[in-house]
């Protein structure tokens, strides 16, 4: 059953990625098939997660493959909040190829299996909150990249700037800031659950924890300093680079 849902999800995400590439080349041509690919893929993956949860004896996403599966779903869910709007459509060009690739990796890593383990409620909450936080920060990085690209186009006075339908510069800045703030709150909750579990169950401080705290400190610094414009976008991208380092350390090592 899970296999039956996995392949449509992967196919739909892949179709969306290609359609977004086509939309970037010929605006107004492939926008609709792209967003429908995301929607249908998300529905299939949601059903996949439901089936996994129903079948598993325990928490089915604690393996790296499972975590990746859940992570992809969270990223696409966050994208769907804005992605349906035509002006934000091209953000999908950054999100969907990565989503399709990671979902494929999740499959290779056994992430759609129905089995699970019993990590306890605290660890399950820790994993879910951490992944949700990282998913939000991934999206914030996409928005920040979009902001920098558009800011550069305005500074270069590119004649084609109005050809592609993209969100206004100020909206991108505002959304990047809000997404970072919300994701940081979720990440903080994830870290707190992790620390509580660490205090109760014991264990040793490792590199993954250190890297997570570095990323958290970076984002917290950006929020506290009320960075804006180019600085906020760059900070989001630097923070995301640390997140990129954290994820493999925590789940693929």
């Amino acid at each position, binding site marked *: 059953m899970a296999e039956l849902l996995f392949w449509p999800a992967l196919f739909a995400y892949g179709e969306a990625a290609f359609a977004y590439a086509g939309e970037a080349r010929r605006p107004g041509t492939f926008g609709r098939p792209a967003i429908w690919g995301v929607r249908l893929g998300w529905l299939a993956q949601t059903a996949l997660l439901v089936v996994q949860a129903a079948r598993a004896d325990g928490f089915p996403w604690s393996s790296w493959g499972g975590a990746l599966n859940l992570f992809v779903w969270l990223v696409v869910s966050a994208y769907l909040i804005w992605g349906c709007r035509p002006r934000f459509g091209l953000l999908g060009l950054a999100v969907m190829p990565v989503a399709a690739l990671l979902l494929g990796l999740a499959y290779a890593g056994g992430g759609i299996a129905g089995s699970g383990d019993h990590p306890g409620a605290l660890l399950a909450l820790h994993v879910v909150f951490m992944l949700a936080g990282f998913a939000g920060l991934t999206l914030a990085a996409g928005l920040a990249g979009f902001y920098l690209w558009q800011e550069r186009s305005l500074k270069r006075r590119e004649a084609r700037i*109005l050809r592609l339908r993209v969100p206004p510069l100020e909206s991108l800045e505002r959304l990047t800031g809000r997404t970072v703030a919300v994701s940081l709150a979720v990440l903080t909750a994830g870290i707190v659950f992790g620390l509580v579990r660490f205090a109760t169950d014991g264990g040793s401080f490792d590199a993954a924890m250190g890297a997570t705290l570095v990323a958290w400190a970076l984002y917290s610094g950006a929020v506290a300093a009320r960075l804006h414009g180019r600085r906020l976008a760059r900070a989001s991208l630097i923070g995301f680079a640390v997140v990129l380092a954290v994820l493999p350390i925590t789940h693929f090592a």
Partner: protein
Amino acid sequence: MPAPEREFRLDLVGISHHRTPVEVRERVAFDLEGAAALARELAGSEGEAVVLSTCNRTEVYAVGADAERPFREAGVESVVYRLHDEAAALHLFRVAGGLDSMVLGEGEILGQVRQAFEAGAPGPLLDRLFRQALHAGKKVRTQTAIAESPASVSAAAAALAQQVFGDLEGRRIVLVGAGKVSEQAARNLTSRGAEIAAIAGRDLTADPEQLAEEIARADVVVSSTSSPGFVLTPRHVRARRGRPLFLIDLAVPRDLDPAIHQLEDCYLYDIDDLQAVVDESLAGRRREAERGEGLVAAEAERFRAWQASLDVVPAIASLRARAEEIRAAELEKLARRLSDDERAAVESATAQIVNKLLHLPIVRMKEAAVTADGVIYAQTVRHLFGLSEEDR
């Protein structure tokens, strides 16, 4: 064999900016009231007419009316174009979609088509034609991006401001100098919700502190003075702290020091930059127009099929009436020899025979109506069954 004449022929006679200069066009130009009166006069009691008159074209759409008359009376009949039926419909759909406009894709024409339709004297055919034209025009505007890109420097400036700020509601504009060009740009911005916060004349530009104060509060600066040097330099622009400032320099020689563009959060566009955006967007409009042509062609095909179906409707009605007339006459001859029950049975049986006999020919006629053969079928049926013109 010559193509048979349609019963309801649509005629279009017109002149437009494509082939006719303004000194000729103005001889047959009408305001809305004049166009309405002319349409009523041409239509008379039995015909249909709609007169579309804008600064770029005057066109008369008519059914059963003399569409050439206003052009003949103005002595310009030698330069008119004449189109009929499907070609006339396609032309109107292109006009409504802005595909025949001087500025490709401009949206004003759709409103003008609507006004002409509402003021005109349409009957069943022109009513259908103009409703479909309005639909086609909307479709071109919503299903292509033809209307999204700006076609003038002032519209490009407003579109770029929206690219920076999104919604312009409540955004503050400072006008430096108040020429015609900057007024036009300001009008484009205010129509999108921005407010003119200050107009800086010579007194204000003479006071750099006050000007810097105004600019610190502004979101958009539009400049168009006849000053020989820069009116605004980086020293007039205070740190923006994340608040973008969009500057539009429409003056030649330029008013705004290009060094302002290097400041963080400042975006300065001069007249050449804006013209480049317009050129690119017009090229984009041409690409979108190709898609628009496909949409209006499909609409024209739908209209053609509908118009063709009109050709067979009277023939079908006449055929049914003739069959019913014969049935009723034959039944009357038998009436005295039949009881009530027998009469009811015979009536039911003959009605079924007539219906079954006519069913297939009528279906075939309707099928033919959507192809080019509708008129031929209608004429053949009239000939075979001896249906006179009065039966229509």
